[in-house]
């Protein structure tokens, strides 16, 4: 009986005190003093970053050098685990620095998980003018910068040159500048065998690339201030109808996905090398994969283009941010600066060039959110390469100069989920594009309104 009373009392006490909650008043970084000349010390725990290749290790070594011998960088490697990160912030024991997707920064900022970097930028002398506008806007929330942008990811049109030639088409027919041309090429490139799809003509990469197709048709999925969903805009509906019709012409999305999934995506039996895909828009990092595993694949590249024929790319990528209650914000800020400054990128690129030359491989460039660094690295890329790979590199840099991004907002994940869920329903044949996007608009706007209302109340 007494045991029951004691146990009950302990549990009730815990419940009332919220003892597992861990939301102690963790210390802010407002008392931190950022100075690029200051001597720094202590541990710099970094969450979400892995030193997996020379681009990472060279910059990391430079950061360690600039932090000085009294400071020690400790990496918690692997992709950022949001739950682990937020729990660490809530319990008052966050890492010093966090490495995240830029699209996550708005959500983190709105919840107070990361701090504004205004003082850090000023104190460490981070030159934000070198960053691409699209990248900086992705980490700017409520007029304050919350992240230092790092890598940049853009899309290119990647195609099988042999299949294009056999079907009497060129890469210009599949770069997206003329949707009728894409549909015609799709029809000519696709092959059926025994009633099954044997070669995908064109893969419009739904649902993930809807923002790209919508932008190509002149509209963003969300307003510039990140407060209004524009998913039911007729131009978005038209873009979705086009992208879905590409699949419908090939027997439906299920057929295309089944064939896509059966390919050895990262191996020498990839869709281009095996001749089972005509063309698709795809991120630029896949060029390096293809060059590495199937250098003899018959490739053709171009940027993705809007309906006016202008290059277009949806930029995404990574960023560094300082968590609320960071135990070493000064060192974290310096590390973020060094990892993203031009000099570090150039040193990393030089090392990659050296290693590629040693292996007899091709240096395909590095894309960053730092425009100045990109220009310097581009100088190291072979400019006289007339091969398809040279064409890819040129297209990649061209695309990088024509990017757009989704603005930071406090309901980033919910917004994305809202339109992706509905696009998936169109792909599985459950809904028509206009109905699906109307429902997506309702769900996305509700999520945005709720999240912004919470933010505005603060």
């Amino acid at each position: 009986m007494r045991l029951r009373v004691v146990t009950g009392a302990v549990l009730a006490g815990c419940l009332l005190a919220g003892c597992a909650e861990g939301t102690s008043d963790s210390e802010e970084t407002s008392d931190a003093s950022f100075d690029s000349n200051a001597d720094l010390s202590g541990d710099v725990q970094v969450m979400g970053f892995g030193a997996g290749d020379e681009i990472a290790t060279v910059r990391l070594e430079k950061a360690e050098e600039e932090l000085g011998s009294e400071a020690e960088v400790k990496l918690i490697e692997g992709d950022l685990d949001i739950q682990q990160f937020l729990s660490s912030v809530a319990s008052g024991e966050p890492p010093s620095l966090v490495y995240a997707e830029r699209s996550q920064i708005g959500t983190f900022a709105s919840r107070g998980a990361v701090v504004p970097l205004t003082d850090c930028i000023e104190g460490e002398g981070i030159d934000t003018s070198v960053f691409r506008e699209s990248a900086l806007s992705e980490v700017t929330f409520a007029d304050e910068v919350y992240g230092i942008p790092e890598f940049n990811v853009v899309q290119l049109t990647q195609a099988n040159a042999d299949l294009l030639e056999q079907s009497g088409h060129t890469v210009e027919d599949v770069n997206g500048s003329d949707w009728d041309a894409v549909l015609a090429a799709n029809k000519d490139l696709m092959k059926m065998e025994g009633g099954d799809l044997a070669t995908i003509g064109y893969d419009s990469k739904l649902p993930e690339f809807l923002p790209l197709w919508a932008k190509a048709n002149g509209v963003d999925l969300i307003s510039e201030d990140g407060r209004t969903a524009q998913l039911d805009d007729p131009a978005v509906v038209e873009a979705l109808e086009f992208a879905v019709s590409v699949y419908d012409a090939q027997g439906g999305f299920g057929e295309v996905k089944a064939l896509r999934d059966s390919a050895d995506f990262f191996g020498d039996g990839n869709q281009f090398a095996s001749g089972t895909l005509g063309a698709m828009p795809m991120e630029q990092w896949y060029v390096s994969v293809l060059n590495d595993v199937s250098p003899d694949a018959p490739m053709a590249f171009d940027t993705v283009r809007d309906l006016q024929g202008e290059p277009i790319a949806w930029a995404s990528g990574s960023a560094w941010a300082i968590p609320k209650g960071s135990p070493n914000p000064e060192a974290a800020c310096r590390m973020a600066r060094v990892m993203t400054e031009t000099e570090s990128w150039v040193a990393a690129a030089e090392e990659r060039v050296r290693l590629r030359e040693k292996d007899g491989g091709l240096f395909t460039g590095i894309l960053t959110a730092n425009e100045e660094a990109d220009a310097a690295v581009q100088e190291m890329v072979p400019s006289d390469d007339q091969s398809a790979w040279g064409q890819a590199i040129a297209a990649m840099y061209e695309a990088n100069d024509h990017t757009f991004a989704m603005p930071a907002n406090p309901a980033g994940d919910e917004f994305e989920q809202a339109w992706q869920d509905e696009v998936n329903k169109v792909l599985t044949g459950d809904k028509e594009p206009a109905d699906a996007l109307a429902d997506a608009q309702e769900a996305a706007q509700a999520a945005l309104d709720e999240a912004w209302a919470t933010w505005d109340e603060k």
Partner: protein
Amino acid sequence: MSATVAARKERKERGSGRHQGRAALLFISPWLIGFAIFMLYPVLYTIYLSLTDYDVINDPTYVGLDNYRELMGDDKVVLAMRNTFVYTAMAVPAQLVLSLALALLLQRAGQAAGFFRTAFFLPKMTPPVAVGVLLLMLLNGQSGLVNEFLGWFGISGPNWTTDPSWVKPGLVIMSLWTVGASVIILLAALQEVPEELLDAARVDGAGWWTRLRHVVLPIISPAIYFIVVVDTIASLQSFTEAYTAFFGAGNTTYSNDAALFYAIYLFQQAFEFLHMGYASAMAVLLFLVVMVVTAVQVLLSRRYVHYTGGQS
């Protein structure tokens, strides 16, 4: 005098009983403490969180029954619950029938029984994430082994992983991969069926099917009941395989609504959107649903489960 002795004896017995009670408590206290910390407290705290708006970072704000009201109007909750029930209704009988069939075969395996027992149990050791990845490979509409097998019989297999009508049957097929534990339990139960009862049935002219239906199944019904209850609870909480195959890292954007199980939607609300209060309300609802389903099974067991040794 005799009253004094009796009172003393009673006191002594009471003291001894109390002593034994304390000793028993002491011995089970590690479990009690573990239960209180790792089970009871999280359950109570989940109930508390279900009445709040909580995003992990900021303190929970009390919102009363708002989360439950929102649950009632959330179409995705209805969809996820329906998916989960349909899957459970298909998976539990399929798992039971297959495990019983395998156990009956194993019973006849003679000396090789040990090998086959191990062989059937091994898939159970496969991490569920690996089963999820395996699912995508085996059930691929173009090059999957399942469709290749169906092709031998002239059947053109469906797109198991993209056609909404075939996603759940595909998941049920994959769930059969791990029936090893049920097979072992049923095999143990089958070995307990008294040979003399089977002989008596044989003498009465009962064939294999009649013996199975009227002798074997009633005797092993407690084991069947246990498997049904455990598998039902596990199916209602299905998560890993479907999440890996349709919502995980390889499918960051493409997902299939037909595979949206309740636990997956709960996970999305909690860990992707950080709606911890809402997710807690979902967890409480699932807890209640599991409790009701189990209670119904307990009631049905009184009629259909036969315990040897007098209980029924």
